[in-house]
């Protein structure tokens, strides 16, 4: 099976026309993330102009949270680190970062929103209500690197916390003591990569991480997120990007994974699903396409495993610490 590029472009394009579906309204809390996922699909497929740039930037800015700073996932919603990263990723992709960087008030509000959510142990809460998760560490550090505002005051304790999420099996948990999960390998390794701190993991740890990650591949070619779980396109990305970050991408079978991702395409309507014959969504579409790009699938724009964005864009982000 081939990658159905045109179908996927059309699928992403159609996403905003579902306003008569109840589900569309129920998913407002993910809208900005959805725009980032869709835009990144288009970028990797070499068709970024499919979205109207000015419209998208205007939408992102309409999600700005005046009260707390940062981006909400939708106008009138509350800001959160998850949606703040999506907002900045979209702006960076479309060349609209100055909307935040050159606006003194917004920039200082944004930085304050991020740093005020860092807790004493270096971890981050997603917003003022106290949920701690290594995902939010990644969000915060990625935001700051996009803005070029990483500082030792934030980075050092943050890295300390992320390292404590490392587990005996070579995986990472969402907090110290939590079970290893593929998505956390991505967020923790990504956080360490962004801050130039990967060397704080020993060669033995890196080997153990590689072992745990490559054991995620199942005979059908897809990758799971934890032992004894089903394969899934999104986990395939979390594992694959993690392997790429530690330079062990070849520890899994490319061909089999490629076939698994391709088999999850909706041949009629476009889009990629978690597993074959399931309902496609933009989340699995971006991670499927980004995975294929990492695997070297032909004619795709190269994707940066640390940011899940095209290299051409991330090249401009702040390089911090030792590389």
């Amino acid at each position, binding site marked *: 099976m081939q990658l159905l590029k045109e179908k996927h472009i059309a699928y992403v394009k159609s996403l905003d026309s579902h306003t008569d579906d*109840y589900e569309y309204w129920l998913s*407002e809390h993910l809208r900005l993330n959805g725009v980032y996922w869709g835009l990144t699909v288009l970028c990797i497929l070499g068709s970024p102009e499919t979205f109207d740039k000015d419209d998208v930037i205007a939408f992102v800015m309409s999600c700005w949270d005046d009260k707390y700073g940062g981006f909400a996932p939708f106008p009138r919603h509350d800001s*959160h680190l998850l949606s703040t990263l999506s907002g900045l990723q979209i702006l960076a992709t479309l060349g609209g970062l100055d909307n935040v960087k050159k606006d003194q008030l917004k920039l200082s509000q944004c930085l304050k929103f991020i740093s005020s959510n860092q807790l004493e142990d270096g971890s981050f809460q997603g917003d003022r209500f106290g949920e701690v998760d290594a995902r939010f560490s990644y969000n915060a550090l990625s935001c700051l690197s996009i803005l070029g505002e990483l500082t030792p005051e934030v980075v050092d304790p943050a890295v300390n916390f992320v390292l404590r999420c490392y587990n005996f*099996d070579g995986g990472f948990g969402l907090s110290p003591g939590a079970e290893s999960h593929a998505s956390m390998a991505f967020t923790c390794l990504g956080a360490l990569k962004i801050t130039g701190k990967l060397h704080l993991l020993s060669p033995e740890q890196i080997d153990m991480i590689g072992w745990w990650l490559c054991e995620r591949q199942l005979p059908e070619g897809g990758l799971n997120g934890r032992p004894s779980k089903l394969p899934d396109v999104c986990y395939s990305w979390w594992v694959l990007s993690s392997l790429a970050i530690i330079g062990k991408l070849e520890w899994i*079978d490319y061909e089999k994974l490629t076939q698994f991702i391709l088999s999850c395409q909706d041949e009629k309507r476009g889009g990629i699903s978690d597993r074959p014959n*399931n309902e496609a969504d933009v989340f699995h579409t971006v991670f499927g396409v980004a995975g294929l790009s990492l695997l070297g699938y032909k004619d795709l724009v190269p994707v940066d495993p640390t940011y899940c964005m095209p290299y051409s864009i991330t090249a401009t982000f702040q390089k911090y610490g030792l590389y």
Partner: protein
Amino acid sequence: MHGVKRRQWTKDQLKQKKEKDRMKIDVYSSLVNSTLDRRDKNDHSLTALEDTTKLLDMNPEFNTMWNYRRDIIAKLKTELPLQFWDKELKFIMVQLKKFPKVYWIWNHRIWVLNNYPGSPASVWERELDIVSALLEVDARNFHGWHYRRMVVGKLENITGKSMDAGELAYASKKINNNISNFSAWHQRVQLIDRMFANGEIEDRKEFMEKEINYLTNAMFTDAEDQSVWFYINWFVNYPLVQSILGKEQYIRFLESMTTNILMINDDDIEFSGSDNSWCLKILLVIEQRQKELSPGFESHSVQYLEKLVVMDPLRKNRYLHLLSKQ
């Protein structure tokens, strides 16, 4: 979306859905707007609280609505009767049963418990029973285990007593129910490590010997599943095993592990005609320790790795990498 079968809609079905959806959208979006208007006016009334109930019942993923709800509750805190808090916990449970994987709901539950008047131990004890019941339904629910650790941590804080021994018994029970429950194996590692660190184990040697029996039984029970093997990998490399058993006994432990694993592997060869890849992978780990401890140890690692390259081609580059280091 996870695990939703792709469905082909007929034109008629689509039309019907859109008609139904139009009504639902009208009700939903006007309630969203009026509630956000209330929020913008700093309305912290019971009526506003009731509106968030209605909305969250329709859409428990609406994080901003949970936020508003918490702001209202925090403002009304001194006026709310005790029954309110139990009612709130019931409301959340209804949502959790429908959506056991939505982070926002778990997060709200912890917030409510933390803000429960007095936050007494009895409330957290009841919570521990609830999370046990949830883990009965889905023994590997990620959120459930994470939540359990938080509840236990809270109880330990309140009572000043470690619950590690009881939690270890719980993890054992979960493993005995299903040997592939890696969440429980994970928990086992956390607990054992902490119990040693905090001096909670009286007879350390006896404990280690029992643990060796336990993992040996587990290995014979299901040699196909990677959960027990990841645990064994940890245990073999856990520094305290050697320091507590002493070098001689530790070496004998490694030898008996080797004998047992080879026995399992031979059974597999007899049964299916090929080696068990996990047996070989863990033998490699054990040999690594043996090589470190006994100079002149006769290693079979190259032979194991060459077999693995052929029998586990998905990961052959890892084995080639390890071969290059032999």
